[in-house]
């Protein structure tokens, strides 16, 4: 009887937890137009919010790349430091180089990177939105 009661209470508790924990929303992948290349000056990183995704679009001499602003440590937002050519997180002093690689501080992995596609002089960023 004790086991039955425990099993019943456990099952009920589990269902209750399921009610409280929402399921992750399905992600949709889409290419979002961010404008022409000239919108991002060389050596600068422009912050943008694309469907809730906070990104930084960086233009180097060779390429245009987009990184998530979310620090891979604990989710604060990184900023671009033009002089040092690094992404810096103010919360726990995490540092990433211009390729997004974690080079100092507590971040355990590089910044998430999004694909940037150039079509007819316009730039598109492939993002996953909910």
């Amino acid at each position: 009887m004790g086991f039955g009661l425990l099993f019943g209470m456990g099952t009920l508790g589990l269902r209750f937890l399921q009610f409280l924990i929402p399921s992750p929303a399905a992600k949709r992948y889409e290419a979002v137009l961010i404008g022409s290349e000239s919108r991002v000056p060389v050596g600068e990183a422009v912050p943008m919010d694309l469907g809730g995704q906070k990104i930084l679009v960086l233009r180097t001499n060779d390429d245009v790349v987009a990184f998530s602003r979310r620090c891979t440590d604990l989710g604060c937002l990184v900023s671009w430091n033009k002089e040092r050519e690094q992404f810096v997180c103010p919360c726990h002093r995490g540092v990433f180089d211009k390729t997004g690689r974690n080079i100092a501080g507590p971040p355990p992995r590089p910044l998430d990177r999004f694909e940037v596609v150039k079509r007819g002089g316009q730039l598109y960023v492939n993002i996953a939105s909910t």
Partner: protein
Amino acid sequence: MTSQTQITAAEGPARKNWVDYIQKDLPEHLDWWPYTLGAIPLTLFGLLVASGLLLTFYYVPSPDKAYESVERITHEVYLGWFVRGVHKFSVDLMILFLFFHVIRVFVTRAYVTPGELKWVTGSVVLLVTLGMGFTGYSLVYDNVSYWGMTVVTNMLGTLPIVGQPLLYLLRGGEEVSGGTLLRLYDLHTKLLPVLLGVLVIGHVVVVRLLGFTEVKGSRRFHSFYPEHTLMMGAIAAGLLVLIVDLVMIFPPTLGPPADPQEVASDVSPPWYFSAPYMWITLLPGPVALWSLLGAVGLFIVYPFLDRTLSERGWPMTAVNAAVGTAAVLLVVVLMVLDTRM
């Protein structure tokens, strides 16, 4: 350590009802200052409930209105600043005195057999109180509290297995949103206070059932009422005066509103989270998290570890004095570092 047997109060007439039980005589050392440190947080908890209840009359738990409502409480509502200040200082002092209480119990080894349950219930009280501190701090919804909420929930999300469900449970989704604020509000004003109330009562009952630790020089007993009650009343009155003074001298302030697009220039948490915050700043994420979790786990089960080591002949009084001093020093150094970085 000398004798650590438990005092089972003076032999009295057969217990008939709960009044007789409460009236059981108490050892005199409970009126000595270091031994009143447990009763002080209890008094402050009462003050927190009262001031928190008043704040709920004006606070609005929605991202659009939360900051505005705190601003209104602070600057417009008659004595709103005072009630908010009392609430803030009560939690600061409650946590401070809980730390003092823990240090006293740790150093005097007041948890030795059969007092393990006293320590375990007390340590859960401390953890839930810190949880109350975190949820309350998040409700202010200024930029520092917003990013503090983001960082702490992310940190919990990195825990193995339970991390992601816990993150979704706290945030109500993947990101910090209006749902997160509502959940933290519910935790802060409903679930955690009830849990804390039950735990505090449980802790006091366990202490009464298991008896008080014997303290050298504490020979006499006195009654709970009126002697002990009067002493506690005097402490409560003194605390109230102290808190009123603190609120007058340091009225509550409010930073700029939450901005999800820009991290606050200084995201340092309140002082009681300052040491773990610096710990996770200085060490790589997984090392910092696991060491913190390990320390919390060790903290809760410490009486059992003490028992095992004592049986093997370790001088636990000296060990506790060394461990306690090292822990306090580490916390102080980390707190100082946080103020300088």
